[in-house]
């Protein structure tokens, strides 16, 4: 690690009338805290504090920004505002809601609903550890993504893309709602052309166009990620990342493992969403919703003997690969 992350505000600091309880998470964009308002209501507060541009010593309140990084810092602030502005217009139970926005300590804060529950990521890990044939039931998957898509549709209606949809950003509350969180990567891009900063991406869930700097992104980019999330909810693991798939696409093969376990229709939906060509995917959430909610009789196609053999062979090969990759990863982690 070359750089020290800015220190989070210590517990019991009061900002904008909210008392900080603890740090919940820290990302490239800033820090998220659990806090309480004057009436004791719990909220989540996101502090704009990009770790690459600003520093803050432990116990200090004001971040330091080096003069040569000031214009980038302000540019980032602008997208933080865009996120706030877009979320402020959205009130939907499947999208995290913004309650307040204020300026203090020479930076800005976004106050959001505090959600209790766990991310879909945690659910997937717990479920796959049970080693059942299915990670989730098909009906669970369909109703879960129906909710997620309702939220995403509103987001797209507000000319915003999420651009970092993954199981870790789909939150399942204790009262059983699915909520899209962390719009940090989102930019209001649907109305503009070019000249915005491309966001970071999560391998496996990021569509190929997120890697290519020249091509345009759209609702179909989020739809790719939705397909990858459904995939992860069926397999228990994320799909191969887009560059790997462009080199050698094993998606159909991996999905054929699920034949007979999940309906042909659901498997086809995943393949459709995850088409490498953006134009071959559902072009809008609406189109995908229609397909996903279509409740016809589910048909299942069993694997033939030849296909089973091919799969077994593939398992051996990919197991070797996987262990090889693990070693490298462990070796580089502490660089």
């Amino acid at each position, binding site marked *: 690690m070359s750089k020290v992350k800015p220190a989070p505000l210590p517990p019991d600091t009061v900002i904008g009338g909210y008392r900080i309880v603890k740090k919940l998470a820290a990302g490239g964009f800033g820090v998220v805290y659990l806090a309480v308002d004057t009436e004791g209501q719990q909220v989540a507060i996101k502090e704009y504090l990009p770790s690459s541009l600003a520093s803050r010593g432990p116990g200090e309140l004001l971040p330091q920004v080096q003069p040569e990084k000031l214009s980038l810092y302000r540019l980032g602030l602008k997208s933080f505002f865009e996120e706030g502005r877009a979320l402020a217009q959205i009130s939907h139970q499947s999208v995290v809601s913004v309650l307040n926005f204020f300026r203090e300590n020479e930076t800005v804060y976004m106050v959001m609903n505090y959600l209790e529950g766990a991310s879909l990521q945690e659910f997937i890990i717990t479920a796959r550890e049970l080693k059942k044939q299915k990670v989730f039931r098909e009906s669970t998957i369909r109703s879960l993504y129906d909710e997620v898509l309702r939220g995403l549709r509103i987001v797209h*209606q507000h000319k915003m893309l999420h651009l970092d949809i993954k199981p870790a950003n789909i939150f399942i509350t204790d009262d059983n709602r699915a909520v899209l969180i962390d719009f940090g990567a989102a930019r209001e891009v649907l109305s503009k052309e070019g000249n915005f900063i491309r966001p970071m991406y999560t391998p496996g869930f990021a569509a190929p166009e997120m890697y290519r700097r020249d091509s345009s992104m759209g609702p179909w980019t989020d739809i790719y990620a939705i397909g990858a999330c459904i995939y992860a909810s069926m397999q228990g693991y994320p799909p191969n990342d887009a560059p790997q798939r462009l080199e050698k696409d094993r998606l159909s093969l991996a999905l054929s493992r699920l034949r007979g376990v999940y309906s042909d229709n659901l498997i086809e939906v995943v393949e459709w969403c995850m088409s490498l060509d953006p134009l071959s995917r559902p072009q809008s959430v609406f189109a995908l919703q229609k397909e996903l909610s279509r409740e016809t009789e589910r048909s299942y196609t069993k694997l033939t003997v030849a296909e089973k053999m091919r799969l077994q062979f593939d398992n051996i090969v990919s197991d070797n690969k996987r262990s090889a990759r693990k070693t490298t990863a462990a070796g580089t982690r502490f660089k």
Partner: protein
Amino acid sequence: MKFSVYQISRQGGRERNEDRMGYAYTRESGLFVLADGMGGHPEGAMAAQLALQTFSAYFQKAASPTVREVPDFLSSALMAAHHQIIRYAAEKGMLDTPRTTLVAAVMERNHVHWIHCGDSRLYLVREGELLTRTRDHSYIEQQAHLGRSTEHINRNILFTCLGSPAKPVYDVSGPVQLQQGDRVLLCSDGLWSTVKDFEIADQLARHPLEHAVPELVEMALKRGGPRCDNVTVLAMEWETPDEFQTTRVSTEDIEEGVFASTIQSGVPDPSVEDLDDEAIERSIAEINEAIRRTAEKNA
């Protein structure tokens, strides 16, 4: 004043989307605009964007809270938009000017007026029937109007638009008194070139906007195939009951003297880094105002 509104713009098979749309409203007046930047000339999207911004700025000035002389307002906004585009081209020393079509409607005091130039259309549907639609400023529509054969006419040839060296030709229509449930749809030619008038009326009559509009756009995209034109639709329903929360606008939610708009300024964008203290404070105030409005709408 209450209306539902739903807007979608899709790129189709084209390299970029040069259609622009948006709406703005005060407590007692609503403006809806759609522009289709023209290919074959430079920067069509810019022409469309400039037209929208000009309409929005004019509306913000004129609507206090109603526009009153709506036909005058529409024609002067259109001419101003035309001049903005010409000025933009002149400032940049462009050899050819950017061009766009335009259709815009103003609804206030229970009446709707509209203006159009080129082949972007307005449809007015009442009780499932197509009450009226605009007639394009194209040779094909002109010939059809004269009762001549239109068989070999290229539908893409327009005899007027905004931004061309010749003064724009436009039509102002209305007032039409609105009834509850009336639907007004603005669209670019990407929709009507493949979806028939009766299909548009039928969809609007049978489904709520939030289903009808995406369905129409999907139809156009599917029929348009891999080279499909940009498809843009902005539709509203007058004085709708409360059922369709997501798209419903009640202008009573906003305060006296306030103006709300989905039309973003930003081009020509002077420069992003000019985010001074004042701009930061203003952004925060705007966000909090939006939070308050959203919360009220859902209360």
